[in-house]
C-alpha cells in the first residue's frame, strides 16, 4: 500500500475497534469512504469539528469506521438530526451519509426541505439503485424495467433523479459522481463540504450483490464498467445537440448558486428580536 494511504488509514479509521467491516467485498461504499476521508484531510478539518451523521442501510454503517463525531440515526432521518446539531452548534461541519432509499423514499420529505431551507449541511447520497441492506428490494431510483427482489417481473415505477430533485428543491450545490470516477468524486465532496449552504453529492455506486446479480452485472468490475460507460460529463452533455439517452446520466457540478444560509438568517432574527424587547 502506498505510504500516503497507510497514513490516512491510521489517522482516520477506528481500525482497532470496529473492523472487520460489514460490507461485501467490492462494494462501492468503501470507495466513497476513501474519497470522503481524503476530501476532509485535504480541506484540513480537525476531527473534533466534523460530525458524520448517517441513516440506516449499508451506507448508514459508514460512520462507525471513522474517528469523527459519528451519529448513526434512524432510517431516513439523518438530515433531521443533522439539522438539530448544526443549529445547536453552527461551528461544526456536519455531513450526512445516506443511501438512495434512506434519502429519497423514507427520508424524501426531509431531503427536499433541507434543500429548501439551505442550512449549511453536506448530504452524501450513495445511489446504488436498490435497497442493499434489506436484500435487494426496489428503491425510488431502481430503473424502470430492471429487476429487484420485490420486482421479479420487472420494475414498473419511474425513478427520481436525486441531483435534479435536490437542485430544484433549492440546494446551493449539487454534484453527481460515481465510484468509478474517484478523482472527480473526491473533488465534488471537497467542494460540497466547503460550499456555504446545503450541498448534495449524489454518488452512483455498485451493489453488485443485490442489484447487479439480478440485472446481469453480478460482479463489481462489470458494474464499474457500466458506470464508466453510462456517465457523461456535464460539460459534454451541455454541448450535445440531442437529449441524453435515458440510461445515461451526467456527472460533475450540476448546480452551484449563492444564497443566504439559514444560520446567518436566523442570527439576524436574534439581533432583531433583542432590539424589539
Amino acid at each position, binding site marked *: 500500500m502506498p505510504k500516503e494511504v497507510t497514513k490516512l488509514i491510521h489517522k482516520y479509521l*477506528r481500525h482497532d*475497534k*470496529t473492523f472487520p467491516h460489514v460490507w461485501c467485498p467490492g462494494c462501492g461504499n468503501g470507495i466513497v469512504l476513501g474519497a470522503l476521508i481524503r476530501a476532509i484531510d485535504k480541506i484540513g478539518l480537525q*476531527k*473534533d*469539528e466534523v*460530525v458524520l*451523521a448517517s441513516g*440506516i442501510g449499508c451506507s448508514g454503517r459508514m*460512520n*462507525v469506521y471513522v*474517528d*469523527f*463525531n*459519528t*451519529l*448513526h*440515526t*434512524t432510517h431516513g*432521518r439523518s438530515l*433531521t*438530526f*443533522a*439539522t*438539530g*446539531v*448544526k*443549529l*445547536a*452548534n453552527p*461551528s*461544526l461541519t456536519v455531513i450526512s451519509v445516506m443511501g438512495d432509499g434512506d434519502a429519497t423514499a423514507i427520508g424524501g*420529505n*426531509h431531503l427536499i*426541505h433541507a434543500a429548501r431551507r439551505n442550512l449549511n449541511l453536506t448530504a452524501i447520497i450513495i445511489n446504488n439503485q436498490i435497497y442493499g441492506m434489506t436484500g435487494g428490494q426496489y428503491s425510488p431510483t431502481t430503473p424502470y424495467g430492471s429487476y429487484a427482489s420485490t420486482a421479479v417481473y420487472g420494475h414498473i415505477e419511474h425513478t427520481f433523479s436525486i441531483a435534479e430533485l435536490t437542485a430544484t428543491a433549492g440546494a446551493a450545490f449539487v454534484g453527481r459522481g460515481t465510484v468509478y470516477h474517484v478523482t472527480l468524486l473526491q473533488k465534488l465532496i471537497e467542494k460540497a463540504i466547503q460550499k456555504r449552504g446545503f450541498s448534495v453529492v449524489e454518488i452512483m455506486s455498485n451493489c453488485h450483490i443485490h442489484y447487479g446479480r439480478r440485472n446481469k452485472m453480478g460482479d463489481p468490475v462489470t458494474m464499474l464498467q457500466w458506470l464508466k460507460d453510462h456517465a457523461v460529463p456535464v460539460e459534454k452533455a451541455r454541448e450535445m445537440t440531442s437529449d441524453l439517452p435515458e440510461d445515461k446520466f451526467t456527472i460533475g457540478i450540476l448546480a452551484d448558486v449563492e444564497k443566504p444560509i439559514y444560520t446567518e438568517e*436566523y442570527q439576524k*432574527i*436574534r439581533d*432583531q*428580536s*433583542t432590539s424589539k*424587547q
Partner: protein
Amino acid sequence: MTKRQSKKRILLQGNEAVVEGALAAGCRFFAGYPITPASEISEVLSVRLPKIGGTFIQMEDEIASMGAIVGASLAGVKSMTATSGPGFSLMQENLGFACIAEVPCVVVNVMRGGPSTGLPTNPAQGDVMQARWGTHGDHPIIVLAVSTALECFEITVKAFNLSEKYRVPVIILSDEMVAHTRETVTLPPHDEIEVIDRITPSMPPEWYIPYKNNSKGVPPMSALGDGFRHHVTGLVHDVRGFPTQTPHEIEAFISRLFRKVTQGFHEIQITQSYLMDDATVAVIAYGSVVRSAQRAIIDARNQGVKAGLLQLTTLFPFPRHVVENVLKQCRFVLVPEMNIGQISREVKRVNQFGTHVEKYNRIDGQLITPDEICVKLLTTLG
C-alpha cells in the same frame, strides 16, 4: 447592591406556562410542527427563544422535529418539542432513539381525543399508555402529567431536570383543558428555581468511555464537538458506543437503562396527597381530573365519607409504592380518567390487598365533573 429578584404574578394559559418553565430550566432549542391544542407553545417560543440566543425551528413534520431536538441535545443544548396525538404517534421512532442513546429531551403531548385525528379541540387522556410504550422495545421513560397552569411551569422545569440527570427522555402529558385555561400563576424568582444540567466528562478525552457504567448508572455526556469523539447509534451498543451482538453486553446495557431510573424512584415518582391522613376511601387521579377530584372529596366529606385524593404527577415509572399504601389504607379506590381506563389497570395490577378498585371513565370529549366523582363515591359505598 443587586436588587433581589421578586415573585411574578401573571395570567397564563397552560401552554404559556410550559414555555416559561422550559426557558427557566434552560431550554434553548425547540423544533416543532403546528398542531392543536399545542401550537401556542411553538408560537410563544418562536418569539422568546431568539431573544435569548436560542433557536426555534418549524420542521417539515413531527418525525423531523423529534430528530432535530435529539440532534441539538447531542450538541449540548437543552431541547424540547410539543405536539398532540397524531404528532406524538409520528415521534415514536426517534423518541426510541433518544431512549437507547440516552439523549436528554422533553416532549410535551397536549392530549386530545383519539385515535387518529380524533377530537382536536376536546380534552382527553387517551395517550397514557402510548407515552409509556409508544416506541418499540423495552425502554425506560419518564411520563409526567400536569393539572394546572402552575404545574405546567413547575413540572416542565422538573421534566428538564430529570431528563438531564438521568439521560432519559421525559414526556409531559397535558390536555386541552389545562393547555388553554388561563389562570393566575405566581412564578418564583429565577434564583429560587433549581436547575440541573447533565454531567459532562471531567476526564481527559482518551479516558472517556461514553457508556461506561457507574454507581448511578448514568454515564457523563459529552457534547458533539467538545473533543470527546465517539459513536452514537440507535443499535444496541457496548460501553464505547459500538454496535454489539454479544449477549452479556446486550443484557448489561439494557439492564443499566432500567436500573438508572429505578435507582431514582425516590425523586422521579412525584405524587401529592390531599386529605389522605384519615381517609378510608380514595380517588387516584392525574391531569385535569385532579381539579374535579379535589372538589369531589370535600363534597363527599360533607356527606360523611372520609374521602382522600392521591394525585399522580408521575405516571411512569408507575409510583407503585405510594399507590400500594393507598390501597392498603382504603377499602375503596376510584380511578376517574378521560379514557377507557388506562391508569386504573395499573392500579388494579398492583392491588394485592383485595381493595375494591373501580374505574370511572368519560370518552366523550367532556371533562369529568366533581359531582360525577362524588356521586360515584357515595353510590358505590351505598
